[in-house]
């Protein structure tokens, strides 16, 4: 070690330590100080004389490979005594021409810098042992300048202070830098104009770059967001989320976070930020990322979510929302709750007569009244068309619940202004209070619905508390309906026939088709119950058509036989809804032609009340059918309004007197009534049938009163088609004792 003086001993000591670690190859690197420390050079330097001869030192240096990597010169008294080919090349001059020239050739002085600048020469004159590399400009022979790094070390072995100068061209690096800058400028332009906010990290949580879109999203200039200032407008509650995400991304994981930022205008935007880890050249953890303003998207999502859970017309929660609300309630507590199921009475009538627009106004009005009248913790939901459900989590007794329902009904009773007119609306309300252990919204709503039907059946405009018995009935009905549908599909519904006999000679003239249905598990179900259930469940049309077709087929079969029944017609009961079916006339015609029958073979029986439901339509359809030859009968005459006007209005061929008249024809006035009906019926060209004739006395009385046709157990019970007696006429005669 040669250049050690004073404090330098420590530096040299450090170098020795480093050399001992064997990771700093002593003296072989270009930037490390000069030859005198290079043992190989010194060991081949035999005498001081040779060293004084700089030419021989120069030739010595030339043999060292590292010397040729950069420009090297030996300088004494400001004069270049020797320079290697590399330095000549840097200066763009022929080899050897630098020998003897001033050292100042490698530095351009700027006149403005004056005496402050310690130039190469001045430094070489100082008492130092070495000069650290400096950037200098070098004037080349062709006049161009080249940037170089210049370093110098004193040759300690030479007493009068010769220096070894090292000159490295740095223009090449500069050019690479320029290219990098150009390419970076292109990427920067790309990032700057990207439609999505992007950013690059600096150190830690700091940002070095944000693009225009990022600045726009933040509502601040980009300069105000670099560093850690991008965090300032983030809502305090979200800062920890960002810190956590940045911690993750700096540890090498992708991270994303949704935060809210307060903009200078005072609005808060919701932003999605994604972070991707990047390891820099310096192996410093950093990240890049993107930011997206999702405020509007979130708002749209929230709106869609709201729409999915609310009714568009009234703004009330819908079925889904109600469901989850109740479930949510039971998830928190198991206290009893009440549920009120509202169904507006005769809403269809208002809709049909005043139009849907008026109907909507009315629904809105009802919704508003209910909502205003309930307590804050209650929920009013629109369940269906004109159905509303009020969920009261705080009401746990039937008394309270009924009281609430009555109060709400009073609220609804006030007239509603529909613009052109005022209407009063009533509702039927089903009330249910949950059992302590029942937490199923579906069951609650179903029971409330059942109770609502009870309220309807009890005369509408009232509230009914759910009755468990009623539910059992409903369940019973449901059971029947489902089996009835199966029976219809599997042709498992029975049709029995009861003969209709001519009084004068007891000849069979017709047969009434009667429904016989037996549930698979519950056994036989009375026909009137089956029909009621079928009407309520909407399968009455199907059932009616089935009976019509079966009857026609059976009649055709009897006709085909050589012995047995030969009724002139078959009598089939109709339901009102069948009459309203647009294809009914066609169904009748099809059933007849399919079995080779004529219209006169069929008699359709209707009750007065069925005719009444829509008199005009019934008159049209029945008039048409009658014109083709189908017979019409009014059933159970005497039970309804018994308006004789029907007999004029409809082309009736048979009137069937209700069985209660027949049961005791001797009673006061009954005989007179029967006589009157017979007289009127005859007047319009029809005949009267006495139903329910059970004994000979009845038979004789009704016959005397003018009933020309008889039906009843006396003359034959309802019987399956395949069990009909071969010659019923004979039996009737024998029984009567003729």
């Amino acid at each position, binding site marked *: 070690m040669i250049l050690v*003086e*004073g*404090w*330098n001993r*420590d*530096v040299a*000591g*450090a*170098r020795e*330590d*480093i050399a001992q*670690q064997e*990771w*700093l190859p002593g003296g072989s690197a270009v*930037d*490390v*100080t000069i030859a005198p420390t290079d043992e190989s050079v010194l060991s081949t330097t035999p005498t001081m004389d040779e060293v004084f001869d700089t030419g021989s030192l120069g030739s010595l240096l030339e043999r060292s490979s590292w010397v040729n990597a950069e420009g090297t010169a030996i300088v004494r008294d400001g004069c270049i005594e020797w320079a290697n080919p590399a330095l000549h090349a840097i200066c763009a001059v022929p080899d050897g021409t630098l020998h003897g020239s001033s050292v100042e050739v490698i530095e351009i002085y*700027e006149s403005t*810098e004056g005496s*402050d*600048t*310690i130039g190469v020469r001045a430094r070489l004159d*100082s*008492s*130092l042992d*070495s000069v*650290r*590399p*400096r*950037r*200098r*400009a070098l004037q080349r022979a062709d006049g161009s300048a080249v*940037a170089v*790094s210049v370093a110098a070390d004193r040759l300690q072995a030479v007493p009068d202070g010769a220096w070894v100068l090292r000159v490295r061209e*740095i223009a090449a690096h500069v050019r690479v*830098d320029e290219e990098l*800058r150009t390419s*970076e400028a292109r990427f920067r332009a790309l990032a700057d104009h990207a439609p999505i906010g992007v950013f690059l990290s*600096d*150190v*830690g*949580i*700091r940002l*070095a*770059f944000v693009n225009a879109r990022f600045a726009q999203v933040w509502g601040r200039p980009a300069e105000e967001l670099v*560093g*850690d200032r991008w*965090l300032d407008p983030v809502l305090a509650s979200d800062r920890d989320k960002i*810190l956590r995400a*940045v*911690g993750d991304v*700096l*540890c*090498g994981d992708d991270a994303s976070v949704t935060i809210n930022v307060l903009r200078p205008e005072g609005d808060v935007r919701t932003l999605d930020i994604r972070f991707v880890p990047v390891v*820099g*050249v*310096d*192996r*410093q*953890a950093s990240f890049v990322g993107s930011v997206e303003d999702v405020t509007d998207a979130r708002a749209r999502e929230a709106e869609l979510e709201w729409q999915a859970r609310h009714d568009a017309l009234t703004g009330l929660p819908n079925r889904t929302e109600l469901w989850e609300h109740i479930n949510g309630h039971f998830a928190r507590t198991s206290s009893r709750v009440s549920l009120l199921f509202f169904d507006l009475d005769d809403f269809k009538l208002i809709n049909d007569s005043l139009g849907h627009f008026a109907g909507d106004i009315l629904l809105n009005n009802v919704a508003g009244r209910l909502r205003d009248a309930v307590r804050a913790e209650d929920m009013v939901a629109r369940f269906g068309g004109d159905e509303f459900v009020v969920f009261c989590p705080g009401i746990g007794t039937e008394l309270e619940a009924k009281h609430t329902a009555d109060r709400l009904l009073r609220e609804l009773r006030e007239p509603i202004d529909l613009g052109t007119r005022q209407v009063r609306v009533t509702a039927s309300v089903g009330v249910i209070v949950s059992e302590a252990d029942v937490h199923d919204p579906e069951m609650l709503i179903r029971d409330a619905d059942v109770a609502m039907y009870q309220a309807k059946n009890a005369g509408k405009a009232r509230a009914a508390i759910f009755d468990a018995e009623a539910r059992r009935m409903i369940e019973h009905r449901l059971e029947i309906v489902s089996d009835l549908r199966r029976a219809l599909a599997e042709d498992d519904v029975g049709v029995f026939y009861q003969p209709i006999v001519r009084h004068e000679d007891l000849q069979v003239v017709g047969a009434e088709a009667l429904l016989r249905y037996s549930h698979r598990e519950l056994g036989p179900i009375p026909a009137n119950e089956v029909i009621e259930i079928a009407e309520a469940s909407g399968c009455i049309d199907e059932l009616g058509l089935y009976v019509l077709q079966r009857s026609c087929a059976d009649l055709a079969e009897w006709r085909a036989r050589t012995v047995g029944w030969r009724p002139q017609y078959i009598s089939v009961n109709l339901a009102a809804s069948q009459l309203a079916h647009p294809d009914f006339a066609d169904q009748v015609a099809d059933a007849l032609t399919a079995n080779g029958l004529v219209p006169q073979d069929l008699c359709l029986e209707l009750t007065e009340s069925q005719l009444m439901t829509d008199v005009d339509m019934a008159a049209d359809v029945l008039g048409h059918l009658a014109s083709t030859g189908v017979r019409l009968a009014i059933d159970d005459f005497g039970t309804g309004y018994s308006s004789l006007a029907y007999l004029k209005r409809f082309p009736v061929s048979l009137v069937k007197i209700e069985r209660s008249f027949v049961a005791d024809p001797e009673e006061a006035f009954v005989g007179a009534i029967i006589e009157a009906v017979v007289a009127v019926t005859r007047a319009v060209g029809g005949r009267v049938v006495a139903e329910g004739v059970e004994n000979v006395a009845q038979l004789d009385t009704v016959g005397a009163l003018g009933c020309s046709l008889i039906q009843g157990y006396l003359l034959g019970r309802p019987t399956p088609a395949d069990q009909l007696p071969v010659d019923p006429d004979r039996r009737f005669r024998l029984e009567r004792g003729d």
Partner: protein
Amino acid sequence: MPTSQASAVRVLHVVDDPSSSAADLARAVAVDPVLTAQAMRLANSAYYGLSRRVRSAEFAVSVLGFATVRSLAASFAAGTLHKGVRLPEHFWEHAAATAVGTAFVSTRLDVDRAEAFSLGLLHDLGAALLCRHDPGGYSFVEEDEQHRDSARSMLVERDVLGIDHADAGAAVLEAWRFPAGMVDAIATHHERPSGHDSKQQRALAAGQALAELAELDDHEHAAACQLVLHHEDALQLADVSPAAAFDLSRMIRGEAHAVAASFHVSEHDAPEGYAVAD
């Protein structure tokens, strides 16, 4: 020199090996508790904004980057991290302010930020060395009232101590194989700025100017204006307008304080399980 220098040398070695990972460097750092504690304190300082979330040496190394870890190792090897060591007046305050300032202007000069930060942190390392090895001589230099004048203070140092602190720091860093650009910039940091200066030289010159501005109090307007005029060239070469210089210096002040605080360690600050080595 403290005997623990070997661990610093190992750190420098790992930094220089391009195949080293953050985990490798963290292992090398973790050998020395003082160095580890310093790395953790700096990474947890407000400057990095991570709010004391850095709890492992590896995370600290990742956050700081290799360049900064290397500059910590160099500071450590030079003895400046050790408790009770005599340092020039306001040494860490000035180093931190210059580090933050240089890092601030690094982007516009296309200098790597971590390198810029290290430049500032280490630019006066030579002064610390001189102060340690010739405390009397260094006191004399410090007392020289003219020491704000760069050229003069350098001459005084050379007269009194035989070498100026710029050359002293550069010599050490060069021996430790710091990048030539950094060594050059530190060697010349008291020279007058020129258009031929490298980007590192420009960054450091501007960083020093901003640091000096930041070290003034808010009310010292006249002094601030004088400083800006004095450093007009340095600021101009880094593309910093006088107005921007005032703005930047205000920002630098707070952050420099956070960085400097991480270097002021008392025994109470030492993390649990770490003894502060002497």
